[in-house]
């Protein structure tokens, strides 16, 4: 579904600032991946680059989605393909209600994908159904996008939006951070409900905590702009116990091989 090949990325404004230094990653339908790593390792950047953020420039490598490069596509065009990013810091849009945003987004994507658009009533039903998933009240639909939301509400809103838009590939950028245990369970439950045979989820996270509730098929550790190690769930447990230091050493010793 998604193939990232030798991806090198720098900051557009400052090309000397290289963030990703050769990332390789393959994600197939029906999989859940977790990307872990210390602060500044480039994991958040990776998800933004996949979503098409303009602050970053790809200097080398490629991102293939269903076999085709998406590097030339704008962020909205990537969204039309079914790529979704749950933001680490969801943006506030005062005066624009969740419902308005999502109906417009849903119908635009549906149109692009040749699916049926929903009229306001149908959409309302669809949205209400998804609200249950994140345990939010119906007023939530009428509130301005993220404006005045608590941190936890913003994160839940991202999962809610994901549920409404039904993407094929979702990057969840630290959606678990800043949540108390109840909210974490709600978010995790949402992710589990939404992942299925024909879609894929990538959890970008700092902590092993959420992996108690969501079972990843693959765990990757990102250090200094590269995937330093890949494995299964046991890798996450090892990280939890031993931290990242043992990997940093590995990188410095086996640098080029990684």
């Amino acid at each position: 579904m998604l193939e990232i090949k030798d991806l090198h990325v720098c900051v557009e404004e400052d090309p000397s600032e290289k963030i990703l230094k050769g990332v390789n990653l393959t994600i197939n339908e029906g999989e859940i991946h977790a990307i872990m790593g210390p602060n500044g390792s480039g994991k958040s950047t990776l998800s933004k680059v996949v979503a098409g953020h303009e602050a970053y420039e790809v200097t080398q490598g490629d991102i293939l989605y269903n076999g085709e490069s998406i590097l030339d596509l704008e962020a909205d065009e990537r969204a039309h393909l079914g790529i979704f990013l749950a933001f680490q810091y969801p943006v506030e849009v005062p005066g624009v209600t969740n419902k308005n945003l999502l109906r417009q987004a849903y119908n635009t994507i549906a149109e692009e994908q040749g699916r049926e658009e929903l009229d306001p009533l149908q959409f309302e039903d669809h949205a209400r159904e998804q609200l249950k998933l994140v345990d939010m009240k119906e007023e939530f639909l009428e509130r301005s996008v993220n404006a005045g939301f608590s941190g936890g509400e913003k994160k839940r809103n991202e999962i809610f939006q994901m549920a409404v838009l039904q993407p094929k590939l979702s990057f969840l950028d630290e959606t678990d951070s800043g949540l108390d245990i109840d909210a974490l369970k709600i978010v995790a439950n949402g992710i589990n409900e939404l992942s299925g045979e024909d879609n894929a989820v990538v959890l970008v996270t700092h902590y092993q905590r959420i992996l108690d509730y969501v079972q990843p098929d693959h765990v990757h550790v990102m250090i200094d702009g590269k995937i330093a190690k890949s494995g299964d769930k046991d890798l996450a447990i090892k990280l939890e116990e031993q931290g990242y230091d043992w990997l940093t050493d590995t990188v410095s010793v086996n640098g080029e091989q990684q």
Partner: protein
Amino acid sequence: MSETEALESMVGGEYKYGFTTDVEYEDFPKGINEDIIREISRRKDEPEWVLEFRLEAFEKWKQMEEPDWPNVEYEKPDFENIQYYSSTKKKDGKKAESLDDVDPQILETYEKLGIPLQEQKQLQGIAVDAVFDSESIFTTFKEKLAEAGVIFCSISEAIQDHPEIVKEYLGSVVPKGDNFYAALNSAVFSDGSFVYVPEDTVCPMELSTYFRINNMQSGQFERTLIICEDNSHVSYLEGCTAPQYQENQLHAAVVELVALEDAEIKYSTIQNWYSGDEKGQGGIFNFVTKRGHCRGDNSKISWTQVETGSAITWKYPSVIMQGDNSVGEFYSVAVTNQRQQADTGTKMIHVGKNTKSTIISKGISAGESNNSYRGLVKISPRADGAQNYSVCDSMLIGQTCGAHTFPYIESANPTAKVEHEASTSRVGEEQIFYLQQRGMDEDDAISLIVNGFAKEVLQELPMEFAVEADKLLGIKLEGSVG
């Protein structure tokens, strides 16, 4: 292209109303002097007292200087090079009694503007007074309104048919010599709308005037007067467009509103005069005095404006709250783009006890434009318990525009409460990316953000016009994403 560049390239959506109607005008000399004023009055067949009103105003105007305090820059109009009266030639020299008498070209013009006047096409539930250059062409639904006792006609007709009412109220809210452009208007005013709602009457439909400046030589000096007697209610809307000319044209209107006891006037404006081109050539100078007087207790006057057009806008729809418990409101969205300049806001004058005012102003600047909010909240010593709440927010799109806020607050009463807040923000790249990630293109994203920003004001518009205003904002800022 970075988002900022994209934003900047979006400015300058096309002006859809820039066409010209080819009609024949009566001859009228340019320039201003006593003879010109007498001639205007003669052609309009006015009673003596109106001529006196005009001449006194002219005397005052001659003593005045064009003010320079607004935060706008322009070349002062050459008052000798303006044609102060512009009337199309008519079959028998009289105003149309029926649509058959109206020049079909003009009818077509209004149809193109989305305001069909023909009976079968008329907008439902909205009575329209169509003002073309200096004169009212036609007023729809007059009979139906008359059944309810509501008078809705051009001010020229009102002077003929209801002189006692006009005489009582004309100049009673905006005096002849109030300010430079109000004095000029009082001397040369051409046409405009007149509304009179009798006691205990809710006007059965929305009233609306559609102003069109067509003649390149002329200025437009309309005069509107709305009177709501005790316990009556009216909602009125004006729309404005003009063709695209290289030269600037002057529009200096005066609007007076009077609300008596328990009366309510809601006045909405969608102003979309031609704003000039990207180099700042042409466009309307929109210098307008609008003032409402809450004369009776428990009365209410509410101004809502969506200002997207004009090269220069300079207006402060105001409310004098004289009656106890009276209410003044001002809701404004002002969008400037390219080289436009707007200096707009309101004055809320609290005189009566327990008077309340609300100001919600949303300024959006793009291109190389400058957008200023200027407002005055004045609490007089006897306005016990008066309250004002103001919010002035500005949004900037791109790096070459300016946003300015000049709120004046004066309080001389310790039991009054005044609160003002203002903020300036930008359309953030992160905001656009977020919406794009949800599948929207840049145009839609910006349009959505801007409409969200202006929502509190747009929802004050009568339903019939809210959609139009929504679109207008979109068009104004959308366009050529490269």
